[in-house]
C-alpha cells in the first residue's frame, strides 16, 4: 500500500538569535521561550533558493534510504516562495537531481497546511496513475520575504526543507484527511513584497477553528484522544500550539514542540517532527494538522502498518 517510507529534513546551519533582538522589540526571556518559542531562526544563504534546499533534503534522504533515482516517477514541491514565477520549482528540482524523463512533476502553492494537502495529493495522484516511487518536498524560504523591522513576523520564521519518500510498503499510511478554507480572510496573512500578518486574526482563527476541526476528524473516524499517540501540529508559535492543545484538553506530552532552535518553517514544520516521532516504537497513530495562509487548514490521521 502506498504510504510514507522515509522523511528527511534539512535545516540551514546559519542561525540568528532572538535574544539579540530583545531590546529592539522590548521583550523578555519568557516571551522568547514560552510565547514565541523560537530562540534561533535557521536562515539559508542569500543566494540559495527553494530548489537548493530541496536538493539538500534529498541528499540527506539518500543517506537514510537506498533510493534509485531512475525509479522516481513523481516529484511534488510544496512552496509559496518558488525559485521563479515560471517554471515550477519541481521541474528545477527534477533537473538538479537528474531524475528520469518519465517522472511527473508539479508544485502545490500552499503555506502551513501544505504538507497535509501534499500528502493527500501525492498518494492520490500516484494511485490514480499507477506510480510507485514519489518524492514530496516542502520548502518555503520565508527569510526572503520577512521585514526585519516587523515584530509580528521577524521573530517567528525559519528556513528549511523536507522530503517525504512515498512508495509501496509504506511504514505509515494516511487513514483519513479533512480540509478547510476561509478565503474571505486571505489578507490576514499576505505577501506582495514583504509578509504581513495580522497576529490577532491568525490567533483567533487557529484557536477557534482548528480544535473543532481536529475534534470532528476524530469523531468521523470513531476515535478519541486515547487512540492518538501524538498530535503533530504545525509549529506556528509556542503560544498557538499551547492554545490548541489546551482547547483540545490534550496532555502536553502528546503534542511535541520542536521549533525552539530553527523557527516556523511553514509547510516543513509537520514533516520535521514526524521524521523524529516515526522512529519511536510507541507511536502507532498520529494526528497531523496544518493551518495558516489562505486561510487554509488540513488534518490527517496517519497509522503505522
Amino acid at each position, binding site marked *: 500500500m502506498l504510504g510514507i517510507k522515509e522523511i528527511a529534513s534539512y535545516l540551514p546551519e546559519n542561525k540568528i538569535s532572538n535574544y539579540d533582538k530583545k531590546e529592539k522589540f522590548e521583550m523578555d526571556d519568557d516571551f522568547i521561550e514560552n*510565547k514565541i518559542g523560537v530562540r534561533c531562526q535557521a536562515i539559508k544563504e542569500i543566494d540559495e533558493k527553494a530548489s537548493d534546499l530541496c536538493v539538500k533534503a534529498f541528499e540527506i534522504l539518500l543517506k537514510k534510504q537506498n533510493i534509485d533515482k531512475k525509479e522516481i516517477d513523481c516529484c511534488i514541491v510544496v512552496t509559496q516562495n518558488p525559485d521563479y514565477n515560471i517554471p515550477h520549482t519541481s521541474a528545477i528540482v527534477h533537473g538538479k537531481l537528474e531524475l528520469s524523463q518519465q517522472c511527473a512533476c508539479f508544485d502545490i502553492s500552499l503555506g502551513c497546511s501544505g504538507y497535509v494537502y501534499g500528502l493527500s495529493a501525492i498518494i492520490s495522484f500516484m494511485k490514480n496513475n499507477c506510480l510507485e516511487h514519489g518524492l514530496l518536498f516542502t520548502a518555503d524560504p520565508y527569510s526572503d520575504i520577512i521585514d526585519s523591522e516587523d515584530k509580528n513576523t521577524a521573530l517567528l520564521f525559519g528556513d528549511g526543507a523536507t522530503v517525504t519518500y512515498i512508495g509501496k510498503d509504506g511504514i505509515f499510511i494516511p487513514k483519513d484527511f479533512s480540509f478547510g478554507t476561509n478565503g474571505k480572510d486571505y489578507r490576514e496573512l499576505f505577501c506582495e513584497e514583504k509578509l504581513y500578518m495580522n*497576529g490577532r486574526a491568525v*490567533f*483567533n482563527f487557529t*484557536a*477557534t477553528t482548528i480544535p473543532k476541526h481536529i475534534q470532528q476528524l476524530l469523531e468521523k473516524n470513531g476515535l478519541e484522544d486515547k487512540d492518538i499517540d501524538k498530535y503533530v501540529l504545525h509549529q506556528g508559535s509556542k*503560544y498557538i500550539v499551547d492554545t490548541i492543545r489546551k482547547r483540545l484538553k490534550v496532555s502536553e506530552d502528546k503534542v511535541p514542540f520542536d521549533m525552539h532552535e530553527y523557527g516556523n518553517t511553514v509547510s516543513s514544520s509537520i514533516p520535521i517532527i514526524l521524521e523524529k516521532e516515526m522512529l519511536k516504537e510507541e507511536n502507532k497513530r498520529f494526528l497531523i494538522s496544518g493551518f495558516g495562509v489562505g486561510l487554509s487548514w488540513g488534518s490527517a490521521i496517519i497509522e503505522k502498518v
Partner: protein
Amino acid sequence: MKATVESVKEVIAEAEVLGDVSDLKNDLALRDQGIDSLDVVNVYLLLEERFDIKIPDEDLSQVRTVNDIIEYINKKVN
C-alpha cells in the same frame, strides 16, 4: 449576559495569563499588569466567546482595563 468585575476576572483567570487575578487593578491597563501582547489577544477572544460579542481591532483602545471591558461589554450587550 452582563459583565461584572467577577465575570471578567474569571475570564482572565481562564486564559491562564496571570498567577493570581485577584491582584489585578480594575483601573490599570492589563498590558501594564504583566499581561503581554499575546496574552491580551487570548483574553479578548475568551471575552468574545463568553459574552457572545465581537471586539473589532478598531475598538481595542476602549478595552484596556477591567473597568473599560465591563463598560464596553455592557454597552454592546444592551
